[in-house]
C-alpha cells in the first residue's frame, strides 16, 4: 500500500500539486487521470521518491519513503518511467537484467535464477524474440514492452507506470494493462485514455488544477458531471456488456 498525505510540488512559483492525498490499496490498480499539466506525472514521481515533497509524507507499506534507502525503495517499488534511454548500447536482455540489480549485492553477478526470471518477464510481454537485440534499435512500442519486462523482473511489491501505453498500438495497450491488472500487485498507473482507465483500473484519482477533483472507485469518478468541467469536453457514458465506455464531443457542438 502506498499512501501519500498532503504532498505538494511547485515548478518555480507555480504549484502543480498542492496538498494532495492519495492511497493505492493493496491488490488494486489505481489510475491517475487528468488533463495535460494537471500534475499526473509529478504526483507519480512524488510517490516513488524522484521528487521529495516539502510538505506531508509518503509511506510504502507503513514505512516512510524518506527512511528507505534507494535500494530498499527499489525492492518495494518498480517503476516504468517515460525516459526510455534509447541511446544506450545495451541489449534487451541486459536491459531487463538490470531489474535484478536491487536484489544483488555489490559484488554479486546475475545468476541462473536471475536469467530465468528475466526470460520469463520478457516472455510475459511477448518480447522473447527481442532478447539478444540492441535496445536502441527497437521501435517505441517494443521498447515500452521491454521496460515493462524490466519492471516485472524487479519483482517489487508495487508497480508504478507513467503512461505505459504510449507508443503502443491498440492491441498492446490492452495487453499491457491486462498484464498489470493480472499481476494482482498494488499498482499505480498514469493514464491519458479514460476508456483504458475505465477497463483496467479499480480506483481513480482525477487531478484538476492544483489538486484532486475526484477520487474513488472507477464507477464513481468516471461520471460525466465530474469529468466535463475538468476536461472541458462533452462526455456521454455508456454501459455495454458490463463495461463502461465514454464518448466525447466538443462542448460548442453540444451547445449548438
Amino acid at each position: 500500500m502506498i499512501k501519500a498525505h498532503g504532498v505538494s510540488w511547485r515548478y518555480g512559483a507555480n504549484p502543480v500539486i498542492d496538498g494532495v492525498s492519495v492511497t493505492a490499496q493493496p491488490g488494486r490498480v489505481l489510475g491517475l487521470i487528468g488533463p495535460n499539466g494537471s500534475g499526473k506525472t509529478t504526483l507519480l514521481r512524488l510517490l516513488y521518491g524522484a521528487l521529495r515533497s516539502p510538505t506531508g509524507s509518503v509511506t510504502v507499506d507503513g514505512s516512510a519513503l524518506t527512511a528507505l534507502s534507494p535500494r530498499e525503495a527499489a525492492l518495494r517499488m518498480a517503476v516504468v518511467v517515460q525516459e526510455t534511454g534509447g541511446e544506450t548500447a545495451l541489449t534487451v536482455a541486459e536491459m531487463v537484467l538490470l531489474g535484478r540489480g536491487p536484489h544483488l549485492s555489490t559484488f554479486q553477478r546475475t545468476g541462473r535464477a536471475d536469467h530465468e526470471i528475466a526470460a520469463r518477464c520478457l516472455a510475459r510481454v511477448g518480447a522473447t524474440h527481442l532478447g539478444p537485440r540492441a535496445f536502441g534499435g527497437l521501435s517505441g512500442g517494443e521498447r515500452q514492452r521491454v521496460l515493462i519486462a524490466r519492471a516485472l523482473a524487479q519483482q517489487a511489491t508495487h508497480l508504478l507506470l507513467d503512461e505505459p501505453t504510449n507508443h503502443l498500438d491498440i492491441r498492446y495497450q490492452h495487453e499491457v494493462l491486462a498484464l498489470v491488472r493480472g499481476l494482482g500487485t498494488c499498482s499505480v498507473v498514469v493514464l491519458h485514455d479514460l476508456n483504458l482507465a475505465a477497463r483496467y483500473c479499480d480506483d481513480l484519482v482525477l487531478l484538476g488544477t492544483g489538486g484532486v477533483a475526484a477520487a474513488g472507485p472507477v464507477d464513481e469518478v468516471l461520471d460525466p458531471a465530474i469529468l466535463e468541467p475538468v476536461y472541458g469536453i462533452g462526455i456521454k457514458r455508456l454501459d455495454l456488456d458490463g463495461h463502461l465506455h465514454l464518448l466525447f464531443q466538443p462542448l460548442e457542438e453540444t451547445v449548438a
Partner: protein
Amino acid sequence: MSTVLSEVREHDVLGVGAQRRRTAFWLSVLTLGLVVTGVVAVGTGAIAIAPATVARIIVHQLFGLGETTWTPPQEAIVWQVRLPRVLLGVLVGAGLAVSGVALQAMVRNVLADPYLLGINSGASSGAAAAILFGAGAGFGQYALSTSAFLGALAASLLVFLIARSGGRVTSIRLLLSGVAVGYALYATTSFLIFASGSAEGARSVMFWLLGSLGLARWDALLTVATLVIGGTTLYLTVVGRKLDALAIGDETAHTLGLSPDRFRMRLLVIVSLCVGVLVSASGSIGFVGLVVPHLARRLVGATHVRVVPVAALLGAILLIWADVIARVLLAPQEIPIGIITALLGAPFLLILIRRLHATGS
C-alpha cells in the same frame, strides 16, 4: 529433463553465456597481448634488445632467477630506463581509458573524455606555473607533478562547483562547465607562457602539453599512480551495474535503487583524482579516453562490468605502442606522445562518427 531443456533455451534467449565467453576470450587475448607488447616495447629503442633477453632480465630482477647472460648496460636500459616507462604507459593508457568509460556513462555522451572536465587544462596550467615560475619548488623533484596535480584538482573542483546547483549535478551542466573551465585554463597557460618571456620554458611547457612518458622512473609517483589507477579500475568494474543504470538516465537509475546525484559526485571525485595523477606523471595525452571505450564496447558489448577491464587493457596496449612510435619514428629525437595519439585517434574517431551515423544509434 524438461526443466533443464527450458533452462538451456532461456539461456540462449538472453545470450548471457555467449557474452561471458566472449568477454573471457578477449580478456585472455588482451592480457597476453599486453605482456607481449610490454616485453617488445622494452626491447625497442636506440639500442635494441632481444625480447627473450628482456624477459630474462625482468625475471632475474624480480625473482633473482637465471644466469646473467647480458651486459650491465643492457640491464640498466631495461630495468632503469625502459621498464618504468612502459609501466607508466600501462598506467596512463588504462587510467585514461577507464576515466573515459566512467565519464561517458556519467554525462551520457559518447564524446566525453577527461579533457571534457577541464582536468587536463588545469594540470597543464599547474605544470606551466611550475616550469616557468618555479611554483611548488618546496616539493623538490616532485615540484612539477605536485603542481600539475593541484592544478587538476582545482580545475575539477571548479567545474564541480559551477555544475552544482541546489545539491544536484546534472550531465549537461557538467559538460558545459567543463568546456568553459577548460578554455579558461587553456588561456591561462598560454598567458603564463607569454608572461614568462622564456623561450626555453615555453618549449618545455609545450612538450608537457603534448604529453610524454619521458619522466618515468622508479619513484613514489609510479607507486601512487599504480595504486590510484589500479583502485579506480577495480572500483569502476565493481560498480559496473550502477554505471549501466546511470548511463540510461537519472530517473531510471533512481528507480533501480541508486542515488544518481550521490553516485555521480563520487565518480567525479574518483575520476578527477585518477586523471590528476595521470596528467601530473605524463602531461596531457588526448584521444585515448575518447576512443578506447568505443573499441572496448565493440569487442564485448556495453555492460560496464565488461567494458571497464577490457578498456583498461586496450588503453594500456595502445599507449605503449604509441610511445614506441614516439621514440622510434624520428630517433634519436623523441616526439611528444600526444601527437601520435591524436594522429591515430582522429581518423579513428571520424570512422566511428560515420558508423554511428550509419547505424542510426
